[in-house]
């Protein structure tokens, strides 16, 4: 286990327990191997800046987007399918053109990215919570509980996540009926994604838990009679979080892609709350009639987002893996 992730874990614990950070912490971060390695990799610095910019654009969408695509009063069907400004028949109000309902595409992309990111973050968090809990329990308890949890994980791992998400979505459709779908779409999507991605966390956490379990501090905690739940949550959890952060970063990119794919296939976010995938699906219908910008621009935004997060995740994985140094 590299020292860096332990430090991070300690920092995380401090944050949670509300202890003020020590004054030297900032200098410690700036001085660390981790930070130097970060500055040395130019691609990573670019990717980090790119990610930051895209996140800011997405989360500040209501304040910086030139139009509000959800404000029905401001959109007009007369503005539908206006091309981007550098083409003929364009309109200076719409830099990247408009979609089929006359919504500004640039603003649509900002808002869509926001929805994509929110779904991504929520589903990664949910998957992590499920996976970490099951992994801790499996690793710490061992025996039959461990066997059952890990067999479920094995079975699920034989299927690609997208298929599981599609199935869960289909089942949810069957239970809720199509009327309530738009209302629940967001939550169904998060549940579907979380249930598709928890396995990786569970396996990793289980592995590290089994290592930590035999260490002296855990045995000491046991000897003084602490309940298992406290030992797992307070003592083992902070020490197994390092790899989890890496998986979460890489999974964020995967979750965004999967969400976009589901939305593109028409089983994710509805057109009333379009994510990037929904926008591409809308644009796909107009591709053949020459209105390419409706599908291509959201697609490029999606690709940029995923590429930047992927680069960051790849680097994080290598940086935290001492074998590759």
């Amino acid at each position: 286990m590299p020292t860096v992730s332990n430090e991070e874990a300690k920092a995380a614990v401090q944050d949670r327990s509300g202890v003020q950070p020590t004054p030297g912490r900032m200098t410690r971060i700036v001085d660390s191997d981790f930070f130097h390695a970060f500055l040395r990799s130019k691609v990573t610095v670019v990717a980090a800046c790119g990610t930051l910019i895209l996140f800011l654009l997405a989360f500040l969408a209501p304040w910086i987007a030139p139009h509000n695509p959800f404000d029905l009063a401001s959109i007009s069907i007369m503005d539908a399918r206006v091309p981007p400004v550098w083409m003929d028949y364009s309109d200076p109000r719409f830099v990247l053109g408009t979609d089929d309902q006359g919504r500004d595409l640039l603003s649509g992309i900002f808002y869509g990215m926001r929805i994509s990111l929110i779904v991504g973050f929520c589903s990664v968090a949910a998957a992590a919570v499920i996976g970490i809990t099951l992994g801790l329990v499996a690793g710490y308890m061992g025996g039959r509980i461990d066997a059952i949890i890990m067999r479920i994980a094995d079975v699920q791992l034989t299927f690609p996540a997208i298929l599981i998400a599609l199935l869960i979505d289909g089942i949810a459709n069957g239970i809720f009926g199509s009327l309530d779908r738009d209302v629940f779409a967001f939550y169904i999507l998060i549940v579907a994604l979380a249930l598709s991605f928890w396995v990786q966390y569970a396996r990793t956490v289980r592995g590290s838990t089994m290592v930590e379990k035999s260490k002296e501090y855990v045995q000491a905690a046991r000897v003084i009679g602490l309940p298992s739940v406290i030992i797992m949550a307070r003592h083992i959890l902070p020490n197994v979080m390092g790899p989890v952060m890496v998986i979460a970063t890489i999974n964020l990119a995967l979750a965004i892609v999967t969400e976009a794919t589901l939305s593109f296939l028409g089983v994710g976010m509805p057109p009333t709350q379009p994510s990037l995938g929904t926008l591409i699906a809308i644009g796909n219908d107009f591709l053949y009639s020459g209105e390419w910008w409706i599908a291509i621009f959201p697609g490029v935004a999606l690709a940029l987002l995923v590429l930047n997060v992927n680069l960051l995740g790849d680097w994080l994985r290598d940086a935290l893996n001492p074998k590759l140094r």
Partner: protein
Amino acid sequence: MIGFATRRFVQAMIVMLVVALLSFTMFRFVGDPVNQMVGIETSLEEREALRERLGLNDPIPIQFYNFLSKAVRFDFGTSYQFRQPVSDLFAKRIPATLELSFTSALFALVVGVPMGIFAGLNRESPISKLFLSVSLIGISLPTFFIGILLIFLFSVTLQWLPSFGRGETVQIGSWWTTGFLTVSGLKALILPSITLGLYQMTLIMRLIRAEMLEVIRTDYIKFARARGLPDRLVNFRHALKNTLVPVVTITGLQLGSIIAFATITETVFQWPGMGLLFLQAVQNVDIPIMSAYLLLTAFMFVAINFIVDILYFLIDPRLRVGRP
């Protein structure tokens, strides 16, 4: 060997049984099968009679047993939206999906393996770096967006290749239709198979590159070079052979996910395969098709995993000794 194979086989059967249970639960409890089959004006007595005839009043274990014994004979009930037996629908569409999956797997191997070998042997060459950057983009672009880009470029702008369907197909035997034998069929295959195979191609390329880099650092390769063996012999006889174990595993496992990702590609290109059928079923809550698709893909995955495990065992002699 026999013991290992038997153990794996038993595990595979257990997985199939669990999936069958899931599939049955879905089939039986999501939505009411009777409501889906009859109109609003059907009386309660008629519904009850239908219920009895379908065996929905039997104890659950017996229903599960009936479900299983029917599934083994490829009887998955009747589709709610098409009013046809699910197995007929699948039979009509399986050739399309298998041909697409096969072509894209071939594309991934034929392009990915040489690229990976090259990038592994010439680590610092600018071409290798180009390969790596391209592969990163290939991994980051979602499958469906690659499809859209290809359609936009080759079908809409250049108008070289068709953007949907299978083209003309030729019937072979009683139910297999193939697009391999007509020009339009082959042309229709190009874009979908690139779309579907690109991700696998980048994966195989990166994997072979990583394995190559690791293997050429080992002592036996250094020794082979020291002995003055020609590069070609060292690279291909000694190094490549030892990179193949993980490649076989991943390729085998990816074969399964090609079939799964075919759902997306088939939707983008309106390819009349099983994936498109499954997606329509998800959108229209056609439970019999969904549960049958779950069972069939699970069967394919389990079978592939089983074969890969056995292959692994045959390729890597180290696994044969001292394995519990």
